[in-house]
């Protein structure tokens, strides 16, 4: 008979909820993200004590305080830099970065691109509400052009970043997008991010009802969702539309077109079949934000745009250390202190 050890006791989402009062505004999209995270953690196969949340500064970054795991609420934009040190020092830990669009794409931009390039095995969540919320509503690097905010009363004059494009450009190994109001989808993406070995970049559209309400409603409201959102599934055709009647194809010249495949008699298997291992396709998907056809915008892709594993930083680091250790052997402290050349004074 096996005795019941602590290991055997199954944790529930409650076990991941800290004793701190959650202080986001009512209706904030961050609640849903917190809930989905707490929902998946009991069964992602990571011992609770090995979970570490590192966040920057912003409404989003308060997340850390609400998870009953190890966590550090750090400084604005630097979560990825801190997480890099955590991972390099202890590769065993499951590290989750929580950041906002300002935190990651403005002040923390340098750390974002380099962590994606170096490919640590951590998860990088950006809560994108297209606004600086904690500082009460200035435009952010993902705010749409012409946006009127406190700091841009006459409209912003900058083009925004396109996060998946930025991530792919930085050689991210895993690029995904999900949204606060689709719990199941978010859980799926978070699980995939967790399972993926390498930096898993997850852009989460998050509604800020106070400073940028409704920024993503077209992707969540019944009337528009099916026309505007495209949910990617590996090996499945790109299909959307009120009655799933529309599909997307890639022409020979690598342009994309929307077809009414049912009317046009195109077999679904002849549409663009999603392949998350294809970087060219992933890049095209990232461009849908700005693509239109006869005045109709392309739908916004959600799901895993790209996922191809490649060597992760901390493993390369450890294997280099092991190889050199095997070849040279550890040097004794006395040997290090004496160096190669010594002399004796009697």
């Amino acid at each position: 008979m096996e005795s019941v050890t602590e290991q055997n006791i199954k944790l529930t989402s409650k076990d991941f909820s800290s004793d701190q009062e959650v202080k986001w505004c009512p209706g904030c999209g961050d609640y849903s993200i917190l809930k989905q995270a707490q929902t998946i953690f009991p069964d992602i196969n990571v011992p609770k004590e090995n979970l570490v949340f590192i966040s920057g500064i912003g409404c989003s970054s308060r997340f850390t305080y609400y998870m009953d795991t190890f966590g550090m609420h750090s400084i604005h934009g630097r979560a990825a830099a801190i997480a890099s040190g955590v991972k390099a020092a202890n590769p065993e830990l499951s590290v989750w970065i929580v950041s906002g669009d300002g935190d990651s794409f403005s002040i923390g931009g340098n750390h974002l691109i380099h962590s994606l390039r170096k490919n640590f095995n951590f998860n990088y969540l950006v809560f994108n509400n297209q606004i600086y919320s904690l500082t009460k509503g200035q435009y952010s690097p993902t705010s749409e052009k012409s946006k009127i905010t406190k700091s841009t009363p006459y409209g912003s004059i900058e083009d925004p970043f396109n996060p998946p494009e930025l991530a792919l450009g930085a050689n991210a190994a895993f690029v995904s997008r999900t949204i606060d109001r689709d719990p199941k989808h978010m859980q799926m993406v978070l699980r995939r991010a967790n399972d993926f070995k390498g930096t898993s970049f997850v852009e989460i559209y998050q509604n800020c009802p106070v400073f940028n309400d409704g920024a993503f409603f077209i992707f969540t409201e019944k009337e528009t969702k099916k026309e505007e959102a495209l949910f990617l599934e590996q090996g499945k055709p790109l299909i959307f539309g009120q009655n799933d009647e529309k599909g997307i194809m890639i022409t020979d010249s690598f342009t994309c077109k929307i077809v009414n495949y049912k009317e046009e008699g195109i077999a679904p298997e002849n549409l663009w079949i999603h392949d998350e291992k294809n970087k060219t396709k992933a890049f095209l998907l990232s461009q849908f934000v700005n693509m239109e056809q006869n005045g109709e915008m392309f739908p916004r892709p959600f799901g895993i745009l790209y996922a191809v594993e490649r060597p992760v930083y901390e493993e390369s680091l450890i294997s280099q250390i092991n190889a050199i250790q095997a070849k040279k052997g550890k040097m004794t402290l006395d040997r290090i202190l004496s160096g190669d050349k010594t002399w004796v004074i009697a």
Partner: protein
Amino acid sequence: MNSGVDFTENASVSEELESVVVRFSGDSGDGMQLTGMQFTDTAALLGNDLSTFPDYPSEIRAPIGTVAGVSGFQVHFGSKEIYTPGDSFDVLVAMNAAALKVDLPKLKRGGIIIANISGFDRKNLGLAKYPEGADPLNDGSLDNYVVHKIDISKHTKDCLIDSGLGTKEIERSKNMFVLGLLFWMFDKPLEHTIEFIESKFAKKPEIAKANIKTLNAGYNYCESTEIFINRFKVSPAKLPAGVYRNITGNHATAIGLIAASEKAELPLFLGSYPITPASDILHELSKYKANGVKTYQAEDEIAGICSAIGAAYVGNLAVTTTSGPGMALKTEAAGLATMLEIPLVIINVQRGGPSTGLPTKTEQSDLLMAMHGRHGESPLVVLAATSPSDCFNVVYEACRIAIEHMTPVIFLSDGYIANGSEPWRFPSGDSLQKIKVSFLKSPNGDNGEILPYKRDEKLVRPWIIPGSKGMEHRIGGLEKENETGNVSYNHHNHELMVNLRAEKINKIADYIPLAKPDTGNEKAKLLVLGWGSTYGTIKTAVREAIKEGYDVAHIHLKYINPFPKNLGELLNCYDKVLIPEMNKGQLLQLIRAKYMIDAKGFSKVQGLPFTTIEIKEKIAEMLS
């Protein structure tokens, strides 16, 4: 030759000297640093005490032959104790006209010049901006010196004519000819340098052969031509018995960190972004992969310190290295580390500032930045090393304090001691004090809660690392409630926490040595109070002044925050206090503010260390 030997009047062969300063000076591409270092190594191995001063331009290759491109290496070696690289030189090797122009002012009257004739042709004289028609080697302007004009380039060429090497490679070997000359002149063997060449060029035997041949040629040239009438001998110094090695400050810093990591039994992590003159610490530590040392070249200095904070958070001995401009970038994260109360060693190898300033020159101008350069009330520990080998002791102490007191510690070094070298009677691993580490593995609250900010008698909080079962908790940059560490905006709590953080740092004074005079008595008319790299110069000056009858003493600070407990009391034992610094009076401000004494400052901000004479004259002036 500090005794003032004049070579012009000296014709005896193999004369014994107490100490000599040689300055190797040439174009950046002439290999003067390597030549100087080889000469130094041999002198050290033969038991001379010594001190070196590499002095190079910030441009990697400034235009050839110009004054801007002159690279110098100064070595002061002797049979007595040596604490400085010397105020002026006895021997100047000038590979070209620009080198002579830059360094002649510091050659002692009657000193020896070894000039490479081919570096003094019309073109080189022009590049060095000598006036049209000037010819210093032949126009009598050097009559007060002993000038040896040697066509080093030509001799090197002749020697390597059959070597099969290209003109460029042959030209590059000429520094070995110089080294051969100097070895003959000071009666030193070639074997150490030959060994060095053989191992350095193990994969390029033809280059090794050429270098050795040129080295021998230089040596033999003296033997056969009798160009030098004098040959000198500098006997081994009477240093304390023991085993010695030669070491630079940056190297000592690197191995001090390794030693601390071994004695704390913690893995060593360095997060760093390259910057002169700190990069050599990153380079050196990167060689110790076999010992599990992790060096992380980050995307910028902010990521350098942040990655170190991450590594400290998970239980490593974490370090970040930089110089002034990088230090500025690290300030916000240093504040986070202060708030988190985690161990972290922040190394600032100071250079001339502000901004890019004088990247390759030395200064002590970041002291107040180290003390105060964070927002909010954010005290941390500040230590400073006094000499190249002392970097080992002080960085070791920095690690000990960081770990045992859960605090960031700023370790200050500077370009002068970072690149300078001296013989070091290194300790054995066993003799190093153990560093106590304890991770909290079970709840510390009376009711089984985890209290990450509950303090011990030193006011130190526990180190709780991720991976410890049942110890999950959150920390962060927001003000925390006493003991629980939960976010708190309560105003009384904030004041309490600000006071606790400050008191914790002040309490460290109970765990560091008291201040005492390094030279002189605990009572005197004048105290010279220094900190950091001015140690050797002040010590030499004060010793000489005492010998000359001045009532003066020297105290040198390694612990700047907190100060040693008895410092205030001790300062009151002197009628006057003089504080020489390579800045505009930063320690001076701290001392005056804290102890309200009328200390006088003496500042030098030329990117150069003080000379002994400057300090001595100031002592005399203060006591007249």
